[in-house]
């Protein structure tokens, strides 16, 4: 494994019955970058993320995360890897019977059981504020929050252990433009201050332009192109062309020039 890569996927194949989602898919995520993953609906962006974080057993291929092969039979180092990444699911995936603060504390309690309650509370509030929620959200239950707030609370939980690697599944979907821009700025800032590597699934063209170092395009069961947006703009693949040069793509591009 190349030491500059945090994630390496080789020859990945995912199939649900007859339906093949990925076939011989390769992708690398470099240390310290924000990699945007785009693709039409149903091209398996979420399935790719689920494969990398070990929620989906692929039918073939190699996946290496932070130097650890998660698909082999040696499970010894897997927990160690889990404490070094954070995952934000689409809907936030908060534990509905715990308050937001307790949600944030779950990974901390799991890995560092001897932290005092006082420190846990302080960390929880600090992470909640960091993710852009007001402090009084800490005592609320997920059902009492709006969709956007739930997403931020999910981010607070994903950041609880100060991960090296952050997986974000459509973080700005469902947020208002102001909230989405703040979320982008936050992701960028976290990357810079904490040296995070971010694997970001998104449909949001503004997010792509604003924060992604590289963009990977999923189509035809594979990653058909990876590179900076300027490079992708030169691509003649019809889907990429339509994606970045369609009406929305042009507006987003103008906005960042």
């Amino acid at each position, binding site marked *: 494994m190349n030491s500059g890569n945090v994630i390496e996927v080789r020859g990945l194949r995912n199939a649900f019955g007859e339906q093949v989602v990925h076939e011989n898919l390769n992708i690398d995520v470099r240390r310290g970058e924000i990699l945007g993953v785009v693709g039409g609906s149903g091209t398996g962006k979420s399935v790719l993320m689920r494969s990398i974080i070990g929620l989906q057993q692929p039918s073939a291929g190699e996946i290496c995360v932070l130097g650890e092969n998660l698909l082999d039979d040696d499970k010894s180092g897997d927990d160690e890897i889990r404490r070094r990444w954070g995952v934000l699911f689409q809907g936030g995936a908060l534990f509905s019977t715990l308050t937001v603060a307790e949600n944030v504390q779950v990974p901390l309690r799991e890995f560092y059981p001897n*932290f005092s309650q006082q420190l846990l509370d302080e960390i929880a509030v600090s992470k909640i504020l960091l993710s852009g929620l007001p402090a009084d959200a800490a005592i609320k239950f997920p059902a009492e929050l709006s969709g956007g707030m739930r997403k931020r609370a999910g981010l607070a939980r994903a950041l609880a252990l100060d991960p090296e690697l952050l997986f974000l599944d459509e973080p700005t979907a469902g947020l208002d433009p102001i909230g989405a821009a703040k979320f982008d700025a936050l992701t960028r800032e976290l990357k810079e201050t904490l040296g995070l590597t971010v694997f970001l699934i998104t449909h949001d063209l503004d997010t792509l332009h604003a924060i992604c170092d590289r963009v990977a395009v999923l189509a035809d069961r594979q990653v058909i192109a990876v590179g900076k947006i300027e490079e992708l703009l030169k691509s003649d693949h019809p889907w990429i062309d339509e994606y970045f040069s369609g009406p929305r793509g042009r507006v987003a591009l103008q906005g960042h020039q």
Partner: protein
Amino acid sequence: MSVQADFEFSEAPDGKANLVLTGDLIVSAIGDLDERLRSLDGPVGYVDLSQAGHVDTIGAWIVERTAREHDATIVNASREASLLLERVKEQKTDDLPERRELIPIKRILWEIGEAVVVACSTMFAFLGFIGQVVTAFFRVLFNPGKIRLNAVVMRFEMVGIRALGIIGLMSFLIGIVIAQQGAVQLRQFGAEVFTINLIGRLTFRELGVLMTAIMIAGRSGSAFAAQIGTMKITEEIDAMRTIGVSPIEALVLPRTLATILWMPLLGFYASIVAVVGGGLLCWVALEIPPATFIQRLREVTPITDFYVGLIKAPIFGAIVAMAGCFQGLQVHNNAEEVGQRTTAAVVQAIFLVIVLDAFFAVFFSSIGWD
């Protein structure tokens, strides 16, 4: 990989105490540093990060808090560390806000009061729900195009056909138990032959239908509550309403109709299987041959016993199905509530069935069907 975080003191050029943090100030290396820094007393002039390794937000928080508590200045922070310190400084907050807690005696009173209010309002809401289902039933009856036949038939399979095995086994064993226990007691009076009366009357009149209702409450009532409750959480019910589909007509009515139609069949089946079980025991243990058993059974079991069971069955079915659907529709917040409501559906259904059964027992006796 990381170096355990620690601290030591030195003296700064201006004579103030200099707290030098060493090691990596990251979550996996902090260990008990937090508690030791918390219990630190004595004036601290500077917090020195020159010896510190990596810093993450949790480490930065601890540094920032310590500096704030002792009014100390943070010095020699690396560029990344200063960025993080800036960030956590903005997040200064005193304490985790707390949910208001009542004193114990007040809380007990409050809980009793709440339980009473909840019980009463649930009862009224359930009555209202029964009303809704009945009006929906008549609306569908006068407008047959609205009947969701496919849904009803699908429930037939789930409620009825798939329950045949377990209800059969249960009833067979209950038949054996009644016969065996009855025989033991009646033998003392030399009246073993009355075991047949016991089997025939008990199963057709009471146990066949009652046990079936309890089994259906556990099997199907709980399933209804969980299905509908989950649909509530995923906003499927709201989606239905906005499309103009009444959840009562689309979800509750098919389930209720299927259960009402199947309960008499299942109840009768359960009674017959229980009689077979009892007959088998009589044959093996009391040496009453099947032919005699059947002949005697027909003599001692009045047809009214069969009617009693048959009249009760659809009513029990309606109660079980409606309790399940009603509780499912009461789910609002979270996954845990689905569990609570499912439990409530089964408890409520069995409770109501037994109350009604007691009422029927008195009622049928008083009209002379004894």
